């Protein structure tokens, strides 16, 4: 049992889904209760990962291996390191909260709805745990399907357009990624004489720089679309606007992180020479900076509450990719922490839109105003989410942003100088949104007498609030968990990095 913890974490939601399918579709309450129980169980079984994880050890832990398709060299192989640990915990918690938040929001095809969420949970956890590239690809594609249906069936008025756009966009990227994977697969056969998709094996390849760069760009398209990086981001606002609240929450909090995770787990370690090619680094950092500033400016002008939050994601994810391509410990660690932070903060912001959408069925910002007067608790929670997203110190966002900027600064002062403007603009679009929706007089009669948050709604926010404070006040454990895996990535792409650092620091002592 203990040896299969990762499998248990991986398949608990799927098992929950299978049981769910057996329940009678007419009994909606039973289905709701079961879906909440199953997703809560999914979170609870993942908790032991936190204390079983040994932050002093390098490499992957709790590894499970079994042959899956021996003729192709495909293995069922799971393992966890600090990066995947944080993302898995984010997935299981946010997954549960998303299900909890859907209690009254979804009334039609309830059974199918929850089934899709549980299936998606397994898919996302699989992406973060897979150590076999083929297995990873399978989970990557599995995630696509439930989200397609969640948007396409339970979405808003333009749901089909948004769902198909989301699907085709991502699929286009996946195809290129598959080509990249196959290139590595056949290269491995040529060099070592056997077929494998195992990542640790593929890391032993010695590929010429030109080929690495081709594969890098193939992966890039897949991951950049998922993140999404500028200019591959236009599926995101449509998908978010049309998706039901819980779909948006999972999409923003977890699905996007599959892209950044792809860069961290595959692009950098498998293609280290390509990843440090100055031209590639410049392009990636440049696109990240454009995303940070452009995303914020476009966000500033949105008239649709949800679209505003969607564009803010483009800006925030720009920080994450910038941190990755700073290619130093601060940048990478900051990026992972910011991925978690974005999951918390933006998850909350989407939940906040969901709460009001359920009451008023509109997302037009100009329909609102003065809600703080009618819904004080709601306004307080929103203020908290806003401050967390805007990077106020002692809350989570600051830690991630600051560390990323520190890392970016170490690599290039110009990058940092541009990126910091994103912090200014971040405050601007959020404060303005808050002012237009929450403050002032209640001018629209439809907003009078709206009920404040009920206990279930508040319960969705409280864990995220607590988590945001924890990361903001005492982030040390997060940095400790990330120290080894981040160091491994840095050592892989910049061999001798830590040796040089030590030498630089030793120097003044010798002079003295």
């Amino acid at each position, binding site marked *: 049992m203990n040896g299969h913890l990762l499998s248990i974490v991986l398949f608990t939601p799927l098992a929950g889904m299978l049981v769910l399918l057996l329940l009678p579709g007419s009994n909606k309450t039973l289905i709701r209760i079961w879906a909440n129980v199953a997703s809560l169980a999914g979170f609870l079984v993942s908790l032991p990962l936190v204390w079983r994880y040994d932050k002093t050890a390098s490499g992957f832990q709790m590894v499970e291996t079994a042959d899956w398709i021996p003729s192709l060299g495909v293995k069922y192989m799971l393992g966890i390191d600090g990066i995947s640990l944080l993302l898995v915990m984010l997935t299981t918690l946010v997954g549960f909260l998303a299900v909890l938040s859907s209690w009254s929001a979804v009334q039609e095809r309830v059974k199918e709805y929850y089934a899709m969420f549980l299936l998606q949970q397994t898919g996302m956890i699989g992406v973060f745990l897979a150590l076999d590239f083929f297995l990873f690809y399978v989970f990557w594609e599995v995630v696509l399907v439930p989200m397609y249906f969640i948007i396409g069936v339970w979405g808003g008025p333009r749901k089909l357009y948004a769902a198909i*756009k989301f699907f085709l966009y991502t699929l286009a990227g996946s195809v290129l990624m598959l080509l990249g994977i196959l290139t590595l697969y056949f290269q491995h056969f040529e060099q070592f004489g056997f077929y494998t998709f195992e990542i640790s094996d593929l890391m032993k390849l010695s590929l010429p720089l030109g080929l690495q760069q081709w594969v890098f760009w193939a992966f890039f398209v897949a991951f950049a679309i998922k993140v999404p990086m500028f200019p591959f981001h236009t599926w995101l606002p449509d998908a978010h606007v049309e998706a039901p609240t819980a779909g948006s929450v999972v999409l923003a909090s977890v699905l996007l992180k599959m892209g950044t995770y792809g860069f961290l787990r595959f692009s950098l370690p498998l293609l280290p020479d390509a990843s440090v090619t100055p031209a590639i680094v410049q392009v990636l950092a440049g696109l990240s900076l454009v995303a940070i500033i452009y995303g914020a400016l476009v966000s500033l002008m949105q008239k649709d509450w949800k679209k505003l939050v969607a564009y803010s994601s483009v800006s925030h994810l720009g920080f994450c990719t910038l941190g990755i391509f700073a290619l130093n410990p*601060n940048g990478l*660690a900051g990026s992972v922490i910011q991925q978690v932070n974005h999951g918390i903060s933006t998850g909350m912001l989407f939940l906040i839109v969901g709460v009001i959408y359920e009451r008023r069925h509109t997302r037009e910002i100009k329909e609102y105003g003065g809600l703080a007067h009618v819904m004080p608790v709601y306004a307080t929670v929103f203020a908290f989410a806003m401050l967390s997203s805007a990077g*106020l110190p002692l809350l989570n966002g600051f*830690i991630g942003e600051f560390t990323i*900027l520190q890392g970016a600064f170490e690599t290039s002062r110009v990058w940092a100088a541009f990126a910091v403007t994103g912090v*200014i603009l971040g405050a601007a679009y959020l404060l303005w949104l808050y002012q237009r929706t929450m403050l002032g007089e209640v001018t629209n009669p439809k907003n009078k007498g709206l009920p404040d948050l009920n206990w279930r709604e508040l319960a969705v926010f409280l864990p995220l609030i607590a988590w945001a404070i924890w990361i903001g006040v005492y982030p040390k454990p997060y940095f400790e968990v990330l120290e080894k895996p981040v160091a491994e990535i840095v050592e892989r792409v910049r061999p001798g990095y830590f040796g040089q650092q030590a030498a630089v*620091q030793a120097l003044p002592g010798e002079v003295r």
Partner: protein
Amino acid sequence: MLHLWLIPAFPLAGFLANGLVGRRASKAAVNLIAIGSVVLSLLWVLKTLAALGPLEHTHIERYFTWFQSGDLRVGFDLAVDRLTAVMLLVVTSVGLLIHIYAIGYMSHEGGYYRFFAYFNLFMFFMLLLVMAANFLLMFVGWEGVGLCSYLLIGFYFLRHSATTAGNKAFIVNRIGDYGFTLAVFLIFLGFGSLDFETVFAAAAGRPVETSAGALTLIGLLLLAGAAGKSAQIPLYVWLPDAMEGPTPVSALIHAATMVTAGVYMIARCAPLYTRAPLALDVVALVGLATAVLAAIIGLAQTDIKKVFAYSTVSQLGYMFLGLGSGAYSAGIFHLVTHAFFKALLFLGAGSVIHALSGEQDLRRMGGLRKHTPVTFVTILCAAVAIAGVPPFSGFHSKDAILLAAHHHAPWMYWAGVATAGLTAFYVFRAVFLAFFGTYRGPHHPHESPAVMTLPLAALALLSLAGGYFNVPRWLEPMFPPAEGAHDALLVYISVAAAAAGISLAWLMYVARPGLADRLAGRLGWLYRLVYNKFFVDEIYDRALVRPCVEGSSAVLWRGVDAGLIDGAVNQVGMKARDAGSVLRLIQSGSIRSYAAWVLWGSVLALAALVLSRGAR
């Protein structure tokens, strides 16, 4: 261990208590929590300072590592040295008086518990700011006080102008923080640490930069942060608007404490600035320019709080002038006396506003000295202090700054003296307009209750006698006294300027009441220029805000995003569908047409084969 952490912890606890349960608590309970926490904080400050005695060395307490990434380690460390001691005393004592005053002032306002929760939260962050032992923890306090400022400016959140002013304050401060953040990175790059102790010790070993170098750049970037927080050119524009907040907020945050954080920060970084004389010159220039500009604008304002707001900007400019002249202790000295008399001016203004049921326009006041005698006398104490009348508090500190400025560059002294004259004029103009002549408004003015007038009296005492707290002497171990002898003539000149300002105000507003209006009419466009604050807000709006907003909307969003990128994406989709609909024609499902395709295909293949053979 002296448990320094308790000093900020008390108000934090007050914030949590009032924030979580204050809504259902009685006013008395809210008062007890809010005032009690500040009292405890003040008592703990006194106890700590008594225990530390002469404070020859910095007392540092390290609690835990806040975060650590790579070589960057930031601790949750608090420190007390002589500079911090001064700040702690000012913040807790003036803070306490204003808290008490607010009981009376806010008694009829909604959201009573919310106000005091924010006030306590502000005290927490402000105390953290002055006790932080490294740059990043200081930044926590720095951002935190900014947040409280935002919340309290927008306290009357039903009023659009109030919430807009809150946004403006936060965003303009963020622009300043841009500099602060980059400075922090540069400091870490240059010194490998963010601890004040380590950084300043390392800086002490560096040579003075005669041309622009790393320290100069750090100094300038920190100045950007300070200019945001302390409302200096070009970032001062948020402070006058911040007067939308309740008057106790203006007194505590936007006069006595928060806005002086920039002054404190530069003084704290004196070891860096001393080695970057170019940056220090810029500090002096920015300070002087702000002092002059804001004093001129203050001449023509008609809203009593706006007059005092521009006065604050101007006085902060004075402090920067002192710092920039290398007289850090003079800058801090003026910070202290200013905290007394400016808090008093605002609280006095608040008392007047309270008496007139919310009226803030000087043109609808007048003759109030008969109706609100206590307020009148206390405001008069503040006025003589800020005008620099000897021997009251402002005289001592302003004198110290002007002498340092003269030593630094004589022309700066003369500009400073002229500003002192303007200061005396606009303050007494406000006093005369409000309290002399006959009452011009529709209300029935009444004196404020004792809970408001007692803090006024206490601050009046401090404003009169505060100059005898010899702050520069106390700070000598940290900031060596500036060179240059005490020149009595220079002192007489500045006192004469103050006297001239007061006399002119008397002439124009008491002796010959119509004179001011005639003069304004005569000066025409010049008066309008000053009255409209040189149109700086309008220029910023046209030159910066609108291009940003309209460009984002028209060019970036509708042009690039929806037009170019998404247009291209949709085009690809459309073309794919078109291609598909052509290809669909082939998939007709008719066996005979398939057979025909097979036939034609075979013929073509054969033909190709034959032809290629033949070609060979």
